[in-house]
């Protein structure tokens, strides 16, 4: 019993210690972000790697989710004779919840893990120490562009996911189920509020971007300099990133109503 309490205490201390280190790491990234040179080239490269290379998975997933929503939504709504509200159901589900959350989960799996693995392998092969010895701050050169790019691409990817989802819902509802296209669009238009729904959705995606950007770079940067360390950093990025997104999603929704 005493051992179990000790273990619990140890885990709690380690969690607090990790949180503290993550906070300091965040401050270092912030300081580096505003220290010249701004490394715009590296930032654009990371935008391409994290954003453009995620386009296919985001578009395909968004379309698939939209189609499923359209199908399930139509079959449910038709029971109550409310199938003309399909646009509102698909739109609000995607914009308020599924778009930001699923995009964040997909991005954690694709781009977050890649970021952690890339930084982790640079630790393992002493590339970051090599930079330090050349008087180049690795947080400034390597970490900050990646974290910044993650924050920047997340709202854009989420918006793209939502658009693809809306199109998928339209394709199923209108193309397959025979719903009137005008009805779908007017239902969507009247139900969605730009300020509350769209801006809220983008804000949510931005917060998820901050979470994933920090977690993936921190896990990679602090990984053990071994193959096993890189593997552990990658895995923990996906696990901690995904769980954090879901937990934060609940609190953002509960507290801000977004």
């Amino acid at each position, binding site marked *: 019993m005493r051992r179990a309490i000790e273990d619990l205490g140890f885990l709690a201390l380690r969690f607090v210690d990790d949180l503290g280190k993550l906070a300091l790491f965040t401050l270092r990234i912030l300081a580096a972000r505003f220290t010249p040179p701004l490394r715009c080239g590296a930032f654009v490269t990371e935008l391409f790697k994290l954003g453009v290379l995620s386009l296919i998975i985001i578009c395909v997933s968004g379309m698939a989710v939209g189609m499923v929503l359209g199908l399930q939504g139509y079959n449910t709504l038709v029971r109550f004779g409310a199938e003309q509200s399909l646009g509102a159901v698909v739109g609000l589900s995607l914009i308020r919840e599924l778009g930001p959350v699923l995009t964040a989960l997909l991005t954690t799996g694709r781009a977050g893990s890649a970021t952690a693995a890339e930084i982790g392998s640079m630790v393992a*092969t002493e590339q970051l120490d090599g*930079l330090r*010895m*050349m*008087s180049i701050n690795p947080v400034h050169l390597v970490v900050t562009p990646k974290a910044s790019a993650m924050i920047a691409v997340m709202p854009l990817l989420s918006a793209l996911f939502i658009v693809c989802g809306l199109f998928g819902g339209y394709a199923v509802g209108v193309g397959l189920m025979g719903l009137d296209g005008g009805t779908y669009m007017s239902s969507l238009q009247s139900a969605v509020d730009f300020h509350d729904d769209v801006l809220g959705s983008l804000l949510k995606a931005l917060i998820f971007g901050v979470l994933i950007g920090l977690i993936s770079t921190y896990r990679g940067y602090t990984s053990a300099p071994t193959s096993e360390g890189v593997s552990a950093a990658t895995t923990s990025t996906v696990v901690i990133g995904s769980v954090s997104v879901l937990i934060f999603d609940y609190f953002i929704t509960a507290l801000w109503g977004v």
Partner: protein
Amino acid sequence: MAFGSRVVFDSLSCGFPRGKISVILGGSGSGKSTILRLVGGLVQPRSGVILVEGQDIVGLAERRMYEVRRKLGMMFQGGALLDSLTVFDNLAFPLREHTRLTETEVAAEVQNRLDAVGMSNVGDLLPGQLSGGMLKRAALARAIIRKPSILLCDEPFSGLDPASTKRIERLLVRMNRDSSVTMLVVSHHIPSTMRMADRVLLLLPQGAVEGQPQELRAHADPRVTAFLNEVPDLDAESLEDPDEPPAGKAVRARGGMR
């Protein structure tokens, strides 16, 4: 100096003369590379003083350490080249970061260093396309590109063919004689070591022995001469007289890094 509970060495005191070549010898895990990393400020000792050209670097803030490292060049055991850049760009990187040289001047400097290490035609290759020996030479070229006043070399001869070993040895000696570069070389290559070294620091489990190569050749401690004569399967314990500490242990305590 310790990593966690593992003590690498205790109460080590040694000095490396300015403008001379000092070679650090010792068995695997004796802490040779750790000394270089201590001098480079990449790891911190638990206690003590490390003077680099008169400045104590223990506990120095990372930002201040970057200024100290401008005087240092380090060749890592595994190369530590940035694997996403070509060899040319790896060498050009510190010049682009820290100098105002034009691209033409940078290219000339890089080619000059590549010629010096016998790698004139590999500038376009990525580090992953180089053999182990070529990687070493490229790493050395990058370490000397900014003309450091102190050069730290971690195993510069390992994995090199005899011709390349001679070439690197000659290059290091020439740099030292022409530019009075202070060199700390970690090596297992006894013949090269004894030819080029002005001072040798030999790390043994019972303590460090320091002196000129010829002094160590004639050392009273049989473990020292056995190590330098590359006696196979050396059993240090069997050579040690427990009642009489090795005379070589007295040869130390010269203060910190000069």
